[in-house]
Every structure is written in C-alpha cells, then in structure tokens.
C-alpha cells in the first residue's frame, strides 16, 4: 500500500431498518492509498455497491467510520459531506447518469461550476481538455442522446474528474458496455492510476477485469471475506 490512505473505512456497518431490516455491510475495514487500483467483487446483492456508496459518502454508516484524508466524515452535516464529494471524490455509475438536456461539455462543467473555483473560460478550457484526453473532443457539443454508450461513459468519467479528485469511485463502469468500450474505459482508468497517481475503486462483476486491478476485495453477505493483490 502506498502512503497515507485517501479513504479509510473502519469497522464499517450499514443496516437498513424498516419493514424488512437488512444488513448491507458489516465490520468492513479497508484503506485506499494514492495510486491504487482497487476492484471490489462479489455476487449480486453481496453489498459491494453499498460498500462503495459508504466509501464515497453517498450513504451514512450505522456503525464505524469513513475517513477521507484522515478526516472523520460520518458526523459531518450533509453540506460538508457534499463539499467533500464535490472536491475530493469522483463518481462513475453503471448508467452514465448524464443530464440529458445538457451537452457533454456542459455535463463536465457542472461540478466545476458547483465548486466555483475557476473562471468561466478556465472551466471551459479544462472541460474541453478533459474530453480531449478521453478522445471526445469532437463530441463536446453533443447531447448524451447523440453519443454511443461508450462515449457517454467516457463523458461521465470526464465529469467525475472535473474537479481533479484524488479518488475515482466507479460502480460497474463497464457493466453496460461492449468489449471494445470496456477496454477503452479500463485503459482510461488504468492511466489515471499509473500516470496521474489517482486512486481508483471499482465495483465489478467482471472477474477478468478485476484481475487486472492492483488489488481485489471480495464481498459476500456484507462482509469483506477475501483480499488479494498488491499495489
């Protein structure tokens, strides 16, 4: 493991109460260091996506704690957690989740505009550069419905990288893509780790893809049962 963890989970648990109580995650300990490509695998319903959402501050743990760059997050107000998501974490989902009325560039600009650190011109330049780096320079002004599945997912990756996050969290990012697009997306993620020293955490069913990550954790029935690989 390289350096101080960007994200560290400690005895993490998530229980859903209600008519049908369910334990999604229990006793999870995990650390993600810079320059790590971590794959979370497991059968359907095992809790791997729930673990990712907890690591990405999209959900609150019922027990344990998630530290982002050493800062405990579970007791922070929602706006503070949103600020951490905006600035330090990037998300890619199985479905691209692009805003349909906006162009690829406008989708990429959205997190930058929400953060408000750059000028309009600087945002646009960075957005175009990000899309260019993912081979989408010709598609910047197109709306999602004018793009292929692979192109949409690459726009989603560009959007996730908009605010230059240290960690990219991806939930089945290739789940809906053909083999060629899957390879393209994987190569991009690999480059983020190798060339830019970001941490990438993906949830995937694809064991072959997971095998190409630096580390793998396997989740079964809400528990991390196995960890393999070394960064």
């Amino acid at each position: 493991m390289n350096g101080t963890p960007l994200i560290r989970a400690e005895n993490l648990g998530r229980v859903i109460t209600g008519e049908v109580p369910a334990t999604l995650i229990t006793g999870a300990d995990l650390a993600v260091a810079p320059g790590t490509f971590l794959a979370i695998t497991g059968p359907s319903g095992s809790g791997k996506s729930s673990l990712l959402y907890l690591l990405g501050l999209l959900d609150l743990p019922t027990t344990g704690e998630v530290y982002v760059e050493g800062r405990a997050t579970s007791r922070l107000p929602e706006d503070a957690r949103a600020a951490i998501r905006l600035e330090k974490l990037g998300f890619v989902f199985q479905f691209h989740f692009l805003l349909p009325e906006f162009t690829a560039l406008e989708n990429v600009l959205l997190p930058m505009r929400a953060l408000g650190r750059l000028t309009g011109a600087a945002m646009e330049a960075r957005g175009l550069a990000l899309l260019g780096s993912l081979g989408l320079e010709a598609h910047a002004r197109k709306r999602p419905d004018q793009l292929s599945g692979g192109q949409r997912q690459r726009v989603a990756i560009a959007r996730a990288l908009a605010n230059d996050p240290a960690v990219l969290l991806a939930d089945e990012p290739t789940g809906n893509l053909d083999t060629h697009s899957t390879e393209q997306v994987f190569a991009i993620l690999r480059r983020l780790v190798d060339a830019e020293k970001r941490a990438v955490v993906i949830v995937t069913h694809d064991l072959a893809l997971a095998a190409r990550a630096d580390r793998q954790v396997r989740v079964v029935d809400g528990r991390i049962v196995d960890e393999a690989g070394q960064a």
Partner: protein
Amino acid sequence: MSARLGLAVSIALTHVRSRARQTLVGVLGVATGVGFSVMMAALMEGSQRDFITQLVDALPHILVSDERRHPSPQPAEEAYDAAAIQGLTTKAIRPGIKNPFAMMSAISGWVDGAVAPSVQAKAVVRFAGRDRTASVIGIDPKREGEVSKLPTQIRQGTLADLYRASNAIILGDGLAGKIGARVGNVVSVTGGTGQVLLCTVVAFSHTGVASADDSQAYVLVKTAQILAGQTGLVNEIRVKAQDVMAAREIAARIEAETGYKSVSWQEAHEDLLSAFEIRNLIMYMVVGAILLVASFGTYNIISTITHEKTRDIAIMKSLGLTERLVRTIFVLEGLVIGLIGTALGFALGLGLSLAMGQVAIKSPFMDATHLPIYYSPLHYALAGAVALSASLVAAYLPARKAASLQPVDIIRGAS
C-alpha cells in the same frame, strides 16, 4: 452572478425550456390569474371611484342646514337640574339660518373652496292642466357654479337665464316632459303656503339621475323665499372644498363654530362607504382566490418536473451539489414561470381593462355610459407581488422535497 447561482439559473432555464408545453400551461395559468385580477381591480375601483365622483359632484361636499343635531335646551332645563317637558311642538316653519351671508363670509375666510346659499321649498308645478310635485331650489346662479355641476347640466339655456325674467324657472327635463312644458312657457308654481307664482321656463336641467330630473326645479333665491313664504330665508349653505377628502373635518369645524348641523358627503353616505369597504374585501378575496388557483398550476408543474427529474437530482447531489443549490434550481423554475406569467398577465390585464372600458352600459336611471375603469400601478404591483409569491411558495414546496432526496436511494433503484 456567482458560478453556483449561474449554474442554478442555467439548469432551471434548461428545464423550463425543455418542457415548453408544461411551462406554457403554467405561464398561461399565472398570466390569466394576474390579467383577470388586474382587470377586476380596475373595474371595481373604477366603478367605486366613478360612483363616489358622481355622488360628490352631484351634491355639495358639505351641507350646512338650519337644523341642529340636538334640540335646543329649554329654559326650564337650564334653570333646574331635572325638568320634565310635555307637549312640546316644533315650529311649523323652517327657522332658517341666522345671518346666512355673514356666516358664508366667515366660512369663506378659512375654507379653501366655495360657498353658496340655497333655499329649499316644496311646490306643485302646473302646466296645461297637468301638475307635479317638485322640490324647488332657490340658488344664486353666480355662486352655484362654484359648488355644483349644475351649470354644465343646463340644456336649452344657461343658469344665468334665471335673471332674464322676473320669475324665471329651470325645470328638470323629466319634470318638464311630464307636464309638457317647453322653454318660454309660463308654468304655475304653488308653494307650501299657497302662494302662487307664474314662472317662465328659461331652460331645462339634466343631471342624468332620473329621480332628480323628474322632480327638481331651480329658481332664484328670492323666488324660492316667496314660495316658502319666508322673506330672507336661507335654509342651506353649500360648501365645496378643494380637498374633497377634508370635507369631514371642515364640516365638524363649521358645526362647532356655528352650531348648525353640518353634514359632509362622507357622513351623508356613510352606509355606502361601508358597503364599499365590504365590496373591496370581497374583491381582494376573489382576486386572491384567482391567484391561488393559478399557483396550483405552478405547484403542479414544478412537482411534475421534480418528479421527472428525481434521477437528475440524485446525480447532482451525488456529485456534490448541496441541497440548497438543488432547491434553488427548482425555486428559480417557479420564479421564471411566475415572472413570465406576471409580465404576460400585465399585458392581458391592460388589454382586458381597455376592452372593458369600451363596453357601453345603459340604465333606466342613468345616461348611457361606458364601464368605468381605473388604471392604477398599485393593481399591477399587488397582483404581481401575490402571483410571484404564490409561484415561489408553489415551487418551494416540491423543491424542498426534491432537494431532501437521498441520492443513494435513487441510484440503488436505477442501478
């Protein structure tokens, strides 16, 4: 504009643009509400002001009469602590105002306006075998024009024609019609004391109010005094104030200084003015209801958009947009609908008001006229403020609900 607000505005505008039909329905709802509210307010206030103007113009602003609000104290009441008086009868003839011309001079000294005397007498006007009871009003033609619109209501002659003949009379045109008298005819006028005068008809008056035109006639003060059988009698002093709304205070001062009953137009029509207040309350309630119904449309549209945009809301929040920013987006959408609707509503309201102003109305009691419309920026400001507030509240409620969505719940469902 900050980058965040700019982002909220651009997302809001994109949403309302991409739902053109829904937006149009919402905008039309607000515009209709604002337009009809403005038109109703213009019509209601127009009719009220027109009525008051007619009321105020038709009568003097203040009428000082030879009556007292409280009966004069009897000598026995002044001499003893308790006195019982029985069988007291009032005088059969009107007492008249003492030293009326001195009083008129005194009033003229401090009232910004005009003062004129009048004599009220009851009489029977007869011509060609037909007779009618009439209120014969003795006036000073030189002063009358300063306290009433009578000079403008004279037909086939002028008020000054009263000086033309020794016993000249101006008949209400309705009255003249009923007895068949024309200008130049001599009519017989019999006063309450049996005094008969032969008067030459020199003109007709036409106030537009049928009840007045059918029963009123004007003569010189002196002629009316002869009919009343009281030489030197002046039983009313009419005052027209420059500031119509100051009539109540002026009347109170005249009464305090002279002791004579002094009635302002507001007091004379207190019941009507109270009725106007109730009418205004009803008007504001109806206008409020119209705008409230329009706001339901905005609520419905913003609710629909937030419902359709649940996934987008979740993704925006997962990217790190705060609840406040997400809420702002949808409140802005309501504001956009409200603003466009209000602007269109202003144009619609103005158009409807102009159209209503062209509608002619006829009444058996009044001359044919048009619907009175009063144009006031206040109507627009009020309707706009209520419509915008209603739109904001209507948008805020679904926006708050949408912004509080937990993104993970939506993302789990969509994955």
